[in-house]
């Protein structure tokens, strides 16, 4: 099991990270890569930039706890989570989750599980810049619903 967790201001290369996870291994049959990207609109309004604030120390620890939980639930061979902080513009990468397993179902489900927890439990906050002002992004009920589905479900 190869686990990589990084918080960084710099950009990342999703393809390179996915390649690194599987390189030299012949037992991995599935790699799922999810990249979250800064988009130029939210609720019909234009977004010019996002600034990600985080709680250093806790963010790494909280992500590590959820990666450990994912490893407990699915037969994973590798996990990479990279979350950026600082100011991002539309088109910029924000977050990367890569999961590797022998079969696709575990890799898909673990990636989805990790993203749902990153959205609602990892200590990050988005400040949104628009033409008409700057506001902290409000938490979405749909994200809470997405994470709740894992609470009652054990594979």
């Amino acid at each position, binding site marked *: 099991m190869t686990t990589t967790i990084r918080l960084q201001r710099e950009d990342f290369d999703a393809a390179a990270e996915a390649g690194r996870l599987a390189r030299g291994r012949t037992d991995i049959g599935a790699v799922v890569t999810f990249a979250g990207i800064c988009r130029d609109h939210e609720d019909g309004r234009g977004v010019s930039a996002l600034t990600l*604030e985080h709680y250093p120390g806790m963010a790494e620890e909280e992500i590590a706890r959820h990666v450990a939980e994912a490893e407990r639930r699915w037969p994973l061979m590798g996990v990479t989570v990279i979350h950026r902080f600082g100011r991002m513009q539309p088109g910029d990468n924000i977050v990367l989750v890569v999961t590797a397993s022998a079969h696709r179902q575990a890799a898909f489900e673990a990636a989805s599980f990790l993203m749902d927890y*990153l959205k609602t439990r990892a200590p990050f906050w988005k400040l949104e810049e628009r033409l008409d002002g700057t506001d902290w992004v409000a938490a979405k009920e749909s994200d809470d619903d997405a994470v709740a589905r894992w609470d009652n479900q054990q594979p």
Partner: protein
Amino acid sequence: MKLLYFAWVRERIGKVEEELHPPAEVTTVSDLVAWLAGRGEEYAYAFENPNVIRAAIDRRHVQPDTLIAGGREIAFFPPMTGG
């Protein structure tokens, strides 16, 4: 204890962190929120709706009824919006 504030909680209070020593009758996270809210208008503004405030003790999520005894670092922040 060391208190940390993030996002709009930090902006409203106007501080990133501070060292405070609440009185002994402040035993839970919600007691601490109520005590902080009484420290001035910037704190009252930050904690005007305690239901939306999230907290962590020593870098772990906690609930309003969690006891704060033994905690060295307590953080307050809005619901998280990462990912």
